[in-house]
């Protein structure tokens, strides 16, 4: 069930990361400058990205496009979403039910097909 494709400690160069994210490398640099992405920097100053950062890029793009969240606020929104995720995982571990989605609408339920 677990997929290891994102678990590999593969590092992507700025250009290949930008290509996989479908973005211009300059925009990736801008994300880094804004603290939205945290790449490794080698001794020669080149940027290297972990593959899971592609998920962060996708989330940035969705939040930008869907809610017009500006760049300054994006960092805050992403930090808050991350913290909520941690809290929800802790709640799940105790077997508590999460009210988060239920506030808006009854959560979708998956059922067996008999």
């Amino acid at each position, binding site marked *: *069930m*677990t*997929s290891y494709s994102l678990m590999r400690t593969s590092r992507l160069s700025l250009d290949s990361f930008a290509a996989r*994210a*479908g*973005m*211009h490398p300059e*925009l990736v640099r801008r994300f880094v400058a804004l603290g939205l992405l945290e790449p490794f920097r080698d001794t020669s100053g080149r940027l290297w990205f972990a593959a899971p950062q*592609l*998920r962060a890029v*996708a*989330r*940035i*793009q*969705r*939040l*930008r*496009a*869907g*809610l*017009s969240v*500006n*760049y300054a606020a994006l960092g805050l929104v992403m930090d808050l*979403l991350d913290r909520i995720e941690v809290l929800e995982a802790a*709640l*799940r*571990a*105790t*077997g*508590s*039910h999460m009210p*988060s*989605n239920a506030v*808006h*609408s*009854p*959560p*979708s*339920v*998956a*059922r*067996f*097909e008999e």
Partner: protein
Amino acid sequence: MARDYYDALGVSRTASTEELQRAYRKLARQYHPDVNRDPGAEERFKEVSEAYSVLSDPDTRRRYDRFGPDFRQIPEGYEASADTARAGRAGSPFGSGSRVRVDSDSGGRFGAGGIDIDDLLSGLFGSRGAAGPIPGADQEAELELSVEEAYRGGRRRITLSGAGEPVSFEVTIPAGVTDGQRIRVSGAGGQGSGGSTAGDLYLVVRIAPHPRYRVNGRDISVDLLLAPWEGALGATVSVVTPGGEAKVRVPAGTSTGRRLRLRGEGMPNPRGTPGDLYAEVKIMVPRKLTARERELFESLRRDSTFDPRKGT
């Protein structure tokens, strides 16, 4: 998306631009797929985005009001000919209803506030400008399992309702899955735009309450009903577990409340030691005694010095 755009935003047909924007912003925050993990949220988000993109532009709103949901089929050709007509003769087949068409490229994109003109990343949901492909968000749905289903695990076909059309897919449920554990269904989450990859769907397992089994993590507790003499003298009795029948050896001198552990008879653990099964003793007495039983219990009362209310 057959739903009326005004209904989708929950506003009246006479709503002002401000009301539209307020309704849209509120719903967009509520249903954005990165905020709301429910699989139904994405569809709803697209619906309100689509509704707002049409109604926020006075021109498309007018066309929508006039022609209804099919307005897109009508206007392009219709208005083009109207424009030509206007250019040629300063007249208009639309009468007073027609005005010079404002190209909506810069004006009505996403309401007034907070747009970067140099926004390099717009158009996730199709209606605004072109952007590169954006992968879909992860989603979450609950999967309720009986204790037995969680114990057995296995490959099952599952239907997800609540996200528009019901979708079904196969998942492997790990044997011994616990309450709150997430099962990842790769690529079954939110759709990506522009041909990009879909997100993952996480099924959050809920173990349904069971009339006999109480589950705590991987440990399972079950009542073990004993006759008074079984508790007093000891016995070997069978107990039904999710994995089948198991034998419990009850030591002599066992009272109600004692928990007898059957090591490893709880939920299996694919990555380690399985849980334990706890048989919780309950001493039961016959509701009605036969004459012989009464005789025996009375002689026991006469001869026994046991007093459970005194320390033993």
